[in-house]
């Protein structure tokens, strides 16, 4: 993935004996891909949104 040719292969911050650390430290961090699906109202979802408050008012279980 990366080309570090010509860059000393050291990761420590102090660079070790007589050298310098030009290479990035190995300290991986996951970067999961985000979900970017559009919001799409479904009939079921809309019905649930409308009926839920009604259920709350009437005390019906809705089940």
């Amino acid at each position, binding site marked *: *993935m990366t080309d570090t040719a010509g860059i000393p292969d050291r990761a420590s911050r102090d660079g070790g004996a007589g050298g*310098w650390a030009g*290479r*990035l430290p*190995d300290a991986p961090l996951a*970067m999961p891909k*985000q979900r*970017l699906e559009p919001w799409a109202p479904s009939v079921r979802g809309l019905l649930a949104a409308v009926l839920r408050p009604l259920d709350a008012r009437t005390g019906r279980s809705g089940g």
Partner: protein
Amino acid sequence: MSGAGRGQGRDGVLGARLLAFSISVLASLTAFLLFLQFGAADGLDGLDIGRAALILLSTFWLAWGAAQGLLGLTTRPAPPPRAPAAAITARTVVLVPVYNEDPVATFARIAAMDASLEATGEEAQVDFAILSDTRNETIAEHERLWFARLIRDRRAAGRIFYRRRSENIGKKAGNIEEFIQRSGAAWDFALILDADSLMEGATIVEMIRRMEAEPRLGLLQTLPRVIGARSRFGRTMQFAAAFYSPVFARGLAMMQGRTGPFWGHNAMIRIRAFAASCGLPALDGPPPFGGHILSHDYVEAALLARAGWTVRLDDDLGGSFEEGPENIVDHAKRDRRWCQGNLQHGRLLFVRGLKGWSRWTFAQGILSYIAPLFWLAFILASVAAQVFHAPLDYFPEANWPFPAFPLDERAKAIGLGVGIFGLLVLPKLLVALDALASGRVRGFGGAARATASATVELAFSSILAPVLLMFQTRSVLQVLFGIDGGWPANNRGDGRLSLRQGVEAAGWIALSGAAGLAGVYLVAPGLVLWLVPVALPMCLAPLIVSWTSRDSRSGLMTVPSELDPSPVIGRQREILRAWTGAAESPARAAPAGAAAPAHA
């Protein structure tokens, strides 16, 4: 934690948004109704209604910008919380992504920032990483050579890193993502820069303090000032950015609260928040609307906000700089990329879970590119209305001997024109008056010079507007039809364009202007005079492109960064002089004494 951003409460943010929306809706509805009345004087037809709708949209957009300026003028947000001035504890890395840039100039900026940080005494907590995506092997070789020089001069072993990707997947966003996946856990914060960014060490430290003080602050954006402009175009843009932008940015900061912007550079991120929230998938389908997300910064800001992180613009932070394009063609090229990126956001408007303001930010980006098309469509519809206009019928009722004269609604049309012109000019005028009253003009060379500069800038931007409108229109159409732009090469390196290059870049605009003017003269001669302010700059576009790319020698357009340069700017020039003997336009030369990379 505060419910909003820069020290203003949630009510303040909602109030600011409501005020700006109310002003914009009121202004656009007024314009819409005035135009309908004007059109109805001789009978309302479809073209009248269409033009009124275009006026509605265009006026909304103009009024929105004006409201932002008014908010910026009339509000002073409280300073944000910051950690006490004890030693900072967080580890920060300054990321400098490069892509075929001039390594001498870029690395001199890094050396200057490192020296500036050293002066704060906090340099031990801050590292640098140059993330190269350079494709040109010669430039890549120079990067390695100059990196060795940078390390040697700054004694920066283990503090400044360099890596080059063999494939630049995902462009800049992919470059940073690769860094985070490989090394992100080594630091708490990352300051993301562009190759032409420059920041004071004290500003970087202040940003770290603010990030430390607010654990939910995921991203802190500064307002970079444009520096180093030499050409007429560049210096005018630089003046406008320094004189007007801070006020508009303050207005923006008042409205956005915790859902602020990310402009891709000169901003600090909390790395773990960014890693957890901002992994960008490629969108399905081919470009321009599918594939990698081009304008990733807006999306990353929206995703951070979606995950509950605060994204904030701290417009009070100084010491943050960037360079701008030196000519209209470079400006238009950059704008072409941004246009595609912003239009691509149309696919993300309804992404699940985004904050409403993030969606509105996407919509604003899209509007900023398509609004000029509304004006163009309005002009074309007005010409069509003249051509297809039915002759007046003075005797509409049969057997009625007295003529019926249409109402004279010209006063309303003139009032509408004055109102729209006012929306364009009034915010700038008020900012200028505020600068005079507050003494801010001292940074621009005093009252007389600042007033002259602002007047010339107004004239300059009015002349440029039709030319930029045409470039923007072409960009939008190219994106919609999936066509890539063609640009003339500029090999001079200093941004100057010859008249021939002006013709290559803008000859089509001159032809369009001349053809439009001739066509209108043939079909609706009464409109010619009205079109001259738009058509004349179009006809002269090649000349304007070339003339504005030349060095400015007028003494106008002075900005604070010239009269009282930030120390880091002086440092960068000194380093450039030491490295190449030239402070302004470094050559891509190999560094003395650095014939080969310094292997350990």
